[in-house]
Each structure stands twice: as structure tokens, then as C-alpha cells.
């Protein structure tokens, strides 16, 4: 659901365009940023805010891979295994990561619901392989140790947040 603050943010974005619907991807990003995926209510909210039909917005969600309808972990780790990265060991890097996180080779979400790991196609960082995006931020020149450290740090941060909250 879009909060009042979200709606104000969206209003600012709308100023960029002569047509409201141009803001649909921005609006969907806003709607999914907290939980990393979109619910039916999010889609209805966005449709209503932009004078679009829910089927149109839903089709857009299905069309773009960064918009997600499946429940996703708090941190989405997307490892590129496309050809240039694979030539530099990304396939094995990804499989090892899944194994260490107790996930099947095709990826998935960790038991604590914190991390979703999946493989993606090219993310424009081929010279810095292996590479992953974690919640759409680049992490490059990765090694097993490096990614484990990042994951450990994020995990710690999350549990801290829980105790503090």
C-alpha cells in the first residue's frame, strides 16, 4: 500500500512527465521497496493513483523482471551468471553461494526469510565479475569470502534491528 509519504514522493515524480502513467515504474518501485515485492493491493493503489486499470499495471509487473509478485526476502541477492560473468567463474560462484546458504541450485529464500538468492542475466558489470546486486546496489569483484562477509553484516544488522525495535 502507498503511504501518505509515498504519495507525496509520487506527486513529485509526476511533475517530470506530461502523462501520469509514465510514472508507473517509479510508483511500483516505491510500492515494493519496503518488502521487495508487490501485493495485489499495491497494484490497485498504483493503478488508482495513475488513472490506469489494474490489468494494465499487473501486466507491467509481469513484464519487467525487477518488479516482483512473489514474496521475497528482505535482501534480494541477484548474481549475474550470463556469459561474460560465467567465463569468469560466476556459475560456480553462484552455486557455491546457494549451497552455503542452504538453498537449492536454482536459488530461493533463506529459512529466516532474510535473503532471496537468484541468478540473473547481464547487469552491465562484466569486467568486475563475479558480481551481484543486493537490493539493486552493485557489489563487484566478489569472492566467496567477500559475499559471506556482506551477508553476515546484513544479517547482523537485521537482527539488531529486531532487538532494538
Amino acid at each position, binding site marked *: 500500500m502507498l503511504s501518505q509519504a509515498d504519495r507525496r514522493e509520487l506527486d513529485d515524480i509526476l511533475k*517530470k512527465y506530461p*502523462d501520469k502513467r*509514465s510514472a508507473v*515504474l517509479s510508483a511500483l*518501485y516505491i510500492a515494493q521497496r519496503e518488502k521487495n515485492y508487490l501485493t495485489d493491493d499495491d497494484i490497485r493503489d498504483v493503478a488508482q493513483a495513475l488513472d490506469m486499470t489494474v490489468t494494465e499495471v499487473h501486466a507491467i509487473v509481469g513484464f519487467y523482471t525487477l518488479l516482483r509478485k512473489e514474496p521475497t526476502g528482505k535482501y534480494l541477492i541477484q548474481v549475474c551468471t550470463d*556469459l561474460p560473468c560465467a*567465463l569468469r567463474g560466476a556459475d560456480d560462484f553462484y552455486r557455491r553461494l546457494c549451497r552455503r546458504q542452504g538453498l537449492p541450485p536454482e536459488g530461493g529464500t533463506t529459512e529466516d526469510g532474510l535473503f532471496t538468492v537468484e541468478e540473473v542475466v*547481464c547487469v552491465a558489470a562484466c569486467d568486475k565479475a563475479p558480481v551481484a546486486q543486493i537490493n539493486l546496489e552493485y557489489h563487484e569483484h566478489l569472492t566467496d569470502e567477500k559475499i559471506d562477509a556482506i551477508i553476515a553484516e546484513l544479517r547482523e544488522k537485521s537482527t539488531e534491528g529486531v532487538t532494538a525495535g
Partner: protein
Amino acid sequence: MSLLQEHVLLRHRDIPNIRDIHVYTAHGGYDALRKALNEMQPGEVTDVVKASGLRGRGGAGFPAGVKWSFIPKDVKPVYIVVNADESEPGTFKDRELIEGNPHQVLEGIALCAYAVGAEAAYIYGRGEFRGPFRGLQQAIDQAYEQGFLGENILGTDFSLDVYTHLGAGAYICGEETALLSSLEGKLGQPRNRPPFPAQVGLYGKPTVVNNVETLTNVPPIVRHGAEWYRQFGTEKSTGTKIFCLSGHVVRPGNYELPLGTPLRYLIEECGGGVPGGRKVKAILPAGASAPILPGDKLDLPLDYESVQAAGSMLGSASFIVMDETVDMVWAASKMVHFFKHESCGKCSPCREGTYWMEDVYHRLRDGHARPDDVDLLLSIADQMDGNCFCLLGEFSLSPVRSSIRHFREEYEMRVKRMGIGD
């Protein structure tokens, strides 16, 4: 390492912190814009770009100045859309320009807008560029503050607003009409052409769609003139080009070189050659979408004409190098998977053709291939050829056909393995 005394595009490699507007202006930044606004008519800007021979760096290689000259003079508003949806496997040059030298990109946009009479520009970046676009937005804000963007730029009548816009994960949006649909908030599916964007583009208005790198070339062209620019490159492929080098090389990365530089220089001098002294087996010169070149083509000059004559395309100049250990059936299947994954599903040849090709590759991988499977792949490719709605479908054929053409024996081995181990 470089054939250039100084970079024309990757200037941040020569000048630290040029992403800051003060550093940029201290090194001649925005002089070209000042020159254009004070001394040149809009048509003259287009003329100098035409005379420079600058060709679109996104992949199609269409002359940029000619594209600009298609914009009608009597229809308003006119839009500029900057294609930063860099999604071709092996391509990462626009990202470096945005991160390292953003003001040259913005100055190029402003020059283009002045030339075609546009008052708004949208920079469409792939969704993964959230981080790089934060920096870009800072650069835009700086440019507004310093009066290089916004109302009455440099005290003239010329005004321009520049906006950023992020996509959300769809390779097809790199195709210019799909990009426009996406920017309008529709599905990122290509449109019928004609009409071309120059006539009916964003929101139905005349629109120039140019790649980031293309526009980054414009400020030096306007500043130093067409003749200066033509000193780089060849007669028909003028200027410098950023070559994205990835795969089996010691030093992958972006390298700016004059067009026409031999492939060997890129791989061996720039990239430090193949690790472990292994041999180059194959090269993809334009990511996944252009035919594979066999490893014996290292003396090929890297300009549009020569690469085409060698049976491939320069495209976005994304060179993926594969050494002798690479299984070419595996490599081709990776690329076919990419295209199947990115097919939008609108036209049946692409939607189903990529599906069936991947299905055959799975059989090859899993040892269930049939004797006629290689011919089946070629037959699917032949029949998809020229029959898809947009170029994505056509692109998907390149890795299949070219890998079979040059490495058919690897396919045949897979086929013969059928039954082994049963």
C-alpha cells in the same frame, strides 16, 4: 596502454574527479555549449555533427547528425531520449560514462537539444542503474545550479529540462521504440515502424533517441570541430569508440580506442591477453547479438565496415573473449537462454522460436540430442530470420548460426554422445 594521448570520452581517467562540475568546467567543460549558444545556429550544430561522421554508438551505427536532421522544424514539443538501458551482455560503457564523466553526457544532451529545438530530455537507464543514477542526478542538479540546464541557459533563450527515468528489467527496452513505450508507462514492446520516432516519438511527438556514448562524443566535436574529430578512426568509421572487453582476458574493462584499431591490440595490449597464455578460441564483438568471430581474426581492424566484412557486426563494441577451454555449445546456449528470457512474447516466431532453440540446447546438454538436431537449430534460425517483430528475435539467431558455422564439430560430438552411459 592507449593509442590516444588523452581520452575523448573516458576523460575521468586522465582528469581525477571530473564528475564534479567545477573540475569539468576548469578543463573546458561546457565550452562547447557556450560556443554553440553564442556563435552557432541550431542547424550548424547538426551540420558539424553530420560532418564529423559520428555514428550511433548504441549498436545500429546510424549517423547521428542525419538522425537529428529528420526532426521536423514545425512540430513542438520535441523530445530527447537518452538511451542508457545498457543491457547487451558484455556491455558496461555507458555506466562508466555516467559514473565517471556525467557532465560531458549532459553537455552532449544540451547540444543535441539546442540543435533540434527540444526543451525536455529524458535519460532512460536500466533499473539496475539506481546507484549510478544517484550520481547522475547530482550532476544534473549541479548543472542546473550553474546555469547549464534549466531556464534561459547561459542567459540565452534556450531552456532545457533533463530528467532521469529508470526502467525495471527488460532488455527489449534498449530498442528505441520499446524504450519509448516503456517511458510512456506502457509495456516495453516495440512499435511498428514507420512512423519513426523522429516523426512520432515520445508522447506522439518528434523525438531523438540517442545512446549515452553517442551524445558524449558531441561536446568535443562541437568544441574542436569535425576535422579534429575525423583525425581519429577511419574514413567511414570516424572518432574514438569505447570497447568493452570481458571474458577470458587478464584485464577486462573499457578501453577507448580510435575506430579501426586492430582486435589484437585490444585483446593483447589493452586486455593483457588471455590468462595462462591460452589461445583465443572465439570472440563476440557485440555482446550476444552479433555473430561469433573465430579466434584467428585477431588482425581485424575494429571499424563498422571491417567487422561487417568479416561476417559480424561492431554494434555496441562489447567484446567477449573466449579461450580454447570454452565449450561453444554451452556458450551459445547461454546466449539463447538470454534471448528466450528477454523475449517479450508479442510475436510468435520470437516467443516460440527462442523457446524451441533452448529446448534443443537442453537436449544437447543433457545427452538426449537427436541426429538431426543441429539441422533443426539451423532450420529454426533460418525461418525466424526476417520474420520477427523486432530485432531481438533476429539477434537470437546469431549465436546459434555462427557457433554452428565455426564449431559444428562440437555440436556433432554432443549428438554422437547420445546413448553413451545408458
